[in-house]
């Protein structure tokens, strides 16, 4: 039941008294939605905190094998995109349609760039078999089997088949001749817990980015069709609120997942 069928005003919906009421309702609705988003992620943050407290060594180890440079580039992309979408609001307020579309498309490009790097990262992880479950177990078991006959003194310099130097080889070296549960032993099971967090958290965040990209494209289409006049700039603002939140959640995910193993990165990638 859009306003165009109802009459007097192009933007005002029939059940609101005035534009101010409509806009403040839209904004408040989005803020409430953001609260639910925060709580949606909070379940994972709580669980992450618990397990990191229990298994610090495993979390540190696993974290050091994630690809830090991609996370860094992605952080830069997302922060920049928050700037560009804010500039889009300004253009909408001023009624500059061309600038609005330009800023929106730039935001879209930055977000799409994030997802592109994310895809590259996922592909590398899968290639290295850094995926909890059977993939992880088989890869680790084969590294352990390769290392088993080697003399413990020579294990540090042992060259694995095909020159592989990924997490599995690193983990096998660390645990070589250690009894599970003893000092310095990094439990492969618990490394998988970290990896569960890594995949689920970044995956759900990625889905949010894709949803945000969809909304931005929709805004571009609306702006192009001339449906975002000056007085209706709050549509852009509402989408930007969501985009900022998704950006902000990344700012929490990034240190929790990628920087938890900062001290070990030198030996990793």
């Amino acid at each position, binding site marked *: 039941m859009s306003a165009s069928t109802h009459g007097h005003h192009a933007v005002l919906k029939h*059940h*609101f008294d005035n534009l101010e*009421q409509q806009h403040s*309702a839209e904004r408040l*609705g989005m803020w*409430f*939605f953001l609260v639910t988003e925060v709580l*949606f992620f909070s379940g994972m943050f709580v669980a992450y905190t618990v397990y990191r407290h229990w298994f610090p060594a495993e979390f540190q180890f696993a974290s050091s094998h994630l690809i830090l440079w991609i996370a860094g580039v992605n952080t830069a992309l997302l922060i920049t995109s928050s700037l560009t979408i804010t500039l889009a609001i300004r253009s909408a307020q001023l009624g500059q349609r061309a600038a609005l579309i330009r800023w929106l498309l730039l935001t879209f490009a930055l977000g799409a760039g994030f997802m592109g790097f994310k895809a590259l990262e996922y592909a590398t992880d899968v290639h290295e078999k850094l995926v909890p479950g059977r993939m992880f177990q088989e890869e680790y078991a084969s590294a352990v089997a390769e290392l088993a006959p080697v003399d413990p003194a020579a294990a540090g310099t042992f060259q694995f088949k095909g020159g592989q130097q990924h997490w599995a080889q690193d983990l096998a070296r660390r645990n070589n001749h250690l009894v599970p549960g003893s000092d310095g032993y990094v439990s492969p099971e*618990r490394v998988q817990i970290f990896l569960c967090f890594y995949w689920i958290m970044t995956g759900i965040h990625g889905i949010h980015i894709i949803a945000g990209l969809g909304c931005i494209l929709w805004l571009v289409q609306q702006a192009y069709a001339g449906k975002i006049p000056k007085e209706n700039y709050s549509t852009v603002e509402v989408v930007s609120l969501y985009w900022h939140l998704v950006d902000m959640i990344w700012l929490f995910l990034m240190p929790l997942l990628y920087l938890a193993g900062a001290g070990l990165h030198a030996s990793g990638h």
Partner: protein
Amino acid sequence: MSIVVADTPRTAPPPPEPVAPARNYLNETSGFWSWLLTVDHKRIGILYLVSITLFFVVGGIAAGLVRTNLLTPNGAILTEDQYNKAFTAHGVVMLFLFLIPSIPAVFGNFLVPIMIGAKDLAFPKLNLASWYVFMIGAAFMVWGLLSGGIDTGWTLYPPYSSRYSHASVTPGVFGVFITGFSSIMTGLNIMVTVHKMRAPGMTWGRLPLFIWAMYATSFIQLLGTPVVAITLVLLMVERVAGVGIFDPAIGGDPVLYQHLFWFYSHPAVYIMIVPGMGVVSEVLTCFSRKNIFGYKAVAWSSVGIAVVGFLVWAHHMFVAGISYYSALLFSFLTMLVAVPSAIKVFNWVATLYRGSITFQAPMMYTLAFLVLFTVGGVTGLFLATMGTDIHLHDTYFVVAHFHFVMVGGMVLAYLAGIHFWWPKMTGRMYSDFWSRTSATVIFVGFFLTFVPQFILGYHGMPRRYPNYPEEFQVYNVLSTAGASILGVGYLMPAVYLTLSLFFGPKAQANPWSATGLEWQVPSPPTVFNFEYLPVTVCGPYEYAIGVDQLGRGLPEPPGSGDDNPAAKVGPTLLPGPLPKETEVVG
């Protein structure tokens, strides 16, 4: 602000009965798609009403299977496996597809805009989307139930649900996950509407208590539902991928699932009961012709329940191996949450005191609510106390307590609401005799069903077991007999309410002589609810001086011509001097 009304005439004259407009929200447009694509909050409320009634029948049939099977000590009709699936189906359908959407989605949608003087909810399309999301989630759950069933119990605890169950858990969990979004959408819509769309003069202190209750409920929906959503995602990942964070095989902790699950699912019982409390406040004042006793206390206790309700979840886990000290803390907090509920009950009883009570069907259901909810609430304290909970945990005592609150409380409040607002929603009156009879039958059937379960539980019969020692049989047979009476009680409204649609006399705009804004528009309302901008001038329950929220007089209350002497001394008959303490709140 309070005005002491002294020697002024007691009431304004009641407004003339508005001419029933030819077009209302029911007949403005017609056809299949006019309903399925509607963005009218009233029609969406009706869509929900029809859907959840259907699910109530499904859940009721599952309950019937469970009770029938318990007739004999070794299971009368089902295998153990079927029994597990039957009680899980009962729990999942009743909780997620009936209780959680019941009052918020039906009456919340239908009434919140009218009660606060708005044309619609803030986001009408989102509102329609919430119904579709609900139905899609329900379809997944029904798929899960039909394609092998779910045998985990409605709590879906891993590692059984993630690793060992061979039933079709995944579609069921996915369905619960999806319906959660519908709940969030409804809650968000209602919160924004209450904040932004109130008519002039409708201050927070003049909001009907139903609105306060809906606001508190929406607050819980908004804060709780996303947490269970992510928990269910984690559970689904674990079941599908075979590895996950609750998996004990890799160092995961299943008790963490319980924490996250109950962080939502305990507040969820307040999502179910608080709207019922809102309905009770409306009906109780109307049929005792009195202002609510302690408006602020009742309003803020809703908010209090919503807040404290988030701090009590671990009382479900006293025997799950949590630390002694945290159990102690949660035990204390659980008793604390009983306080706002008790505040409400005391205020309701004080409202009844010296009221001019009449016993129409909504009031009969409400009085039944008061009794049953109080029993349910007090037995909850036995479970909040750690010492007794260890004895009673996971026994039929818990089942009986829960059903006293949820069925005796919530379902009766829901039925009270249906009977109260049915004339408004449909424009028709139902049979007075049959509605009173059904309230009585349900009350009796309910007591007979669940009181024996308290005894069973106290003597140690665990919940969810298909068989039991022979000495428990008499109580189980009694309980099943009660359930049959309860079933008949539920069938009666289904019949006479349906008949009223076709043969019932036309309802007046204000058949109960109530004060809320929803009664100042025709029955059924027109599409945009108000033909004028309603300006609220006083509080929601000015029965003592007999004015509605627009400051106009009330029509003659129903039953005032009967043998009720209090009603004869009606406000319009005796315009004499008034007691000095009568107050206008506002």
